[in-house]
């Protein structure tokens, strides 16, 4: 990507104000210690750093701030656990989880940690393999939804005028249309399988992210660095995706997290309805078979409880990350230090 002297502003850059104009604040000359040096400034790159480097620095400062928040650390821990299970778990399962056996409806035991289905399939094995399927499609779909949101939101917000009018209208319409029923109608016309489910979810759930990103882009459009890039003759695509996008990366990330949470719930719902490929093992198809086999009335709680618990845990992890991000964005939401509270309440108004 081409670099011009104009494309130099990065989001956290207080750099511009410190340009060497030669005048130091008198305080520094009078007193070497201004006492204000306790704040460690985020890594600021030299102004000529290429786009990809600035992108990664942006990501790194996001990461540094994320791990400082308790909710985010907890959320990341949970999600990380599921990612590890999804990657390595299936390697430890020796048997195809769809293998039938004589041992049907078995209670959880040492041999079958989570018991078996009515067809004698090992539920623990299904959960592990299902984790991989569900995580893979969940994250992939989440990425696709986010990409669509980014494209619609940024183009609309940056272009303004007629293009924006149309894209906003489209976004707002999709925002009020009931997403899951629409996804169900769509999915029922297409061949059943994870790809269909991913596609119908992408089609029906991009609007929220697009709306958030559009308003953010709208406010960025008149910032100096965009004006400068425009004056420097940069193409519209370069400005949108190389100048504006890196500055919105934290919002995009937050959006990805909440989208993935929604996507995992929606995929499980669609598969539960029987719109998935019933022969693949995933959390959603486990529900489908459990429901179809009347697991509930046979008292086979070990069949339908584990996949739901996995979804709820993973979802809670994602939700924690999201609330943590909210706290970073709005410091008023952060909880205050606990000690001294009692004393404070005495002195402070009721």
């Amino acid at each position, binding site marked *: 990507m081409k670099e011009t002297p104009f494309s130099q502003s990065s989001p956290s850059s207080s750099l511009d104000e410190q340009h060497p104009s030669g005048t130091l604040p008198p305080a520094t000359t009078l007193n070497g210690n201004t006492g204000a040096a306790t704040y460690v400034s985020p890594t600021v790159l030299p102004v000529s750093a290429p786009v990809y480097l600035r992108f990664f620095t942006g990501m790194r400062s996001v990461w540094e701030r994320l791990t400082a928040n308790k909710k985010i650390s907890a959320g990341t821990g949970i999600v990380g656990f599921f990612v590890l299970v999804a990657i390595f778990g299936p390697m430890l399962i020796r048997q195809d989880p769809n293998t039938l056996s004589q041992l049907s409806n078995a209670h959880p035991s040492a041999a079958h940690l989570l018991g078996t289905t009515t067809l004698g399939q090992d539920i623990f094995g299904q959960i592990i393999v299902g984790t991989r399927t569900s995580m893979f499609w969940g994250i992939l779909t989440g990425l696709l939804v986010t990409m669509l949101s980014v494209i619609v939101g940024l183009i609309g917000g940056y272009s303004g005028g007629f293009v924006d009018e149309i894209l906003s209208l489209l976004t*707002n319409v999709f925002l009020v*249309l009931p997403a899951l029923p629409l996804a169900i109608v769509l999915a*029922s016309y297409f*061949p059943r399988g994870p790809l269909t489910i991913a596609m119908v979810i992408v089609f029906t759930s991009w609007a*929220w992210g697009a709306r958030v990103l559009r308003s953010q882009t709208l406010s960025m459009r008149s910032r100096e660095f965009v004006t400068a890039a425009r004056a420097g003759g940069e193409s519209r695509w370069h400005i949108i995706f190389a100048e504006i996008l890196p500055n919105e990366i934290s919002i995009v990330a937050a959006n990805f997290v909440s989208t993935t949470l929604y996507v995992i719930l929606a995929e499980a719902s669609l598969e539960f*309805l029987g719109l998935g490929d019933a022969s693949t093992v995933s959390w959603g198809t486990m529900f489908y078979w459990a429901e179809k086999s009347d697991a509930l009335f046979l008292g086979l709680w070990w069949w*339908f409880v584990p996949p739901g618990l996995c979804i709820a845990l993973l979802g809670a992890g994602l939700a924690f990350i999201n609330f943590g991000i909210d706290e970073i964005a709005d410091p008023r939401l952060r909880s*205050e230090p606990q000690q001294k509270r009692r004393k404070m309440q005495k002195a402070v108004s009721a």
Partner: protein
Amino acid sequence: MRHILRRIIFYLVALWASVTLNFFIPRLAPGDPAQALLGRFERQGPISPAALKALQAAFGIDTHDPLWDQYFKYLQNLLTGNLGLSFTYYPTTVFDVIAQDIVWSLVLGGVTVAISFTLGCLIGIFSAWRRGSVFDATLAPVMTFLSAIPYFWLALIILYIFGFKLGWFPFSDGYDTTLDIAWTPDFILSALFHAILPALTIIISAISGWLLVMRNSMITTLSEDYVLMAQAKGLSSRRVMFAYAARNAILPNVTGFALALGFIVSGQLLTEIVFSYPGIGFSLLQAVQGQDYPLLQGIFLVIAAAVLGANFLADMLYVALDPRVRLDRSAEA
């Protein structure tokens, strides 16, 4: 007034969009699902010419009319309530199937949304007001966990515990099927009794969303100067909490109504399926499993119309609550 007019136009556009999507989806689908459906109909028995016409208009089969003509014929049919025949419930019309279901779903949905919204907002207000207390500190993570639970899973658990294990509640249907559907005390009581578990599921799942938004918004509002001034005025805590803080803090929850409602309606559909509740969700399942496209699309249209209507009401509520939009500035949905 201009704002309200704009909103009305917007919802009409949204309604038109869902109707049009409905028209094009079967025509753009791979293979020829409609032709296959027609074949299945024909195998089932003779179809009246009128029903055949409706099917042809809805799916664009066996016709050489230009798309425009098909489209207008389709719109005409919609306006007269002609949604075609249901395949699953042949020869009942889709309109009749939905008309039977929709009351159950609307009542269940309306009541649960109202309860969860009220409770969620109230608990959110108190949680933010008593911020940092044990109540608040335990509530937030619990609600976060609840917000991530799939509705149908919660439904399964609740049904398993209260219906199957404890046997306190019936585990299917919307009323005692031995009774006639009528406004008799027996029937109403039995309908209420059957609705408790599905309603509980929806309320528990939906409440966390309202609550968390309300709590965060309330915390932000509490640090506003006007809340500080209300305190300085020596007003009672209740007045500061409701007239000053909550009155402003509730606005994001009303704005976010569209998104939340989408979730809740979807969740309700799945809940109805788990409880075999005679609402629209259960027919949806039948339609999906029987590839009953006319019913499926009819259901989608009705849900879309209901959701759009509810959103319009929420918009009007917003106008009533926030004097700033009453002038003319438009707050996009």
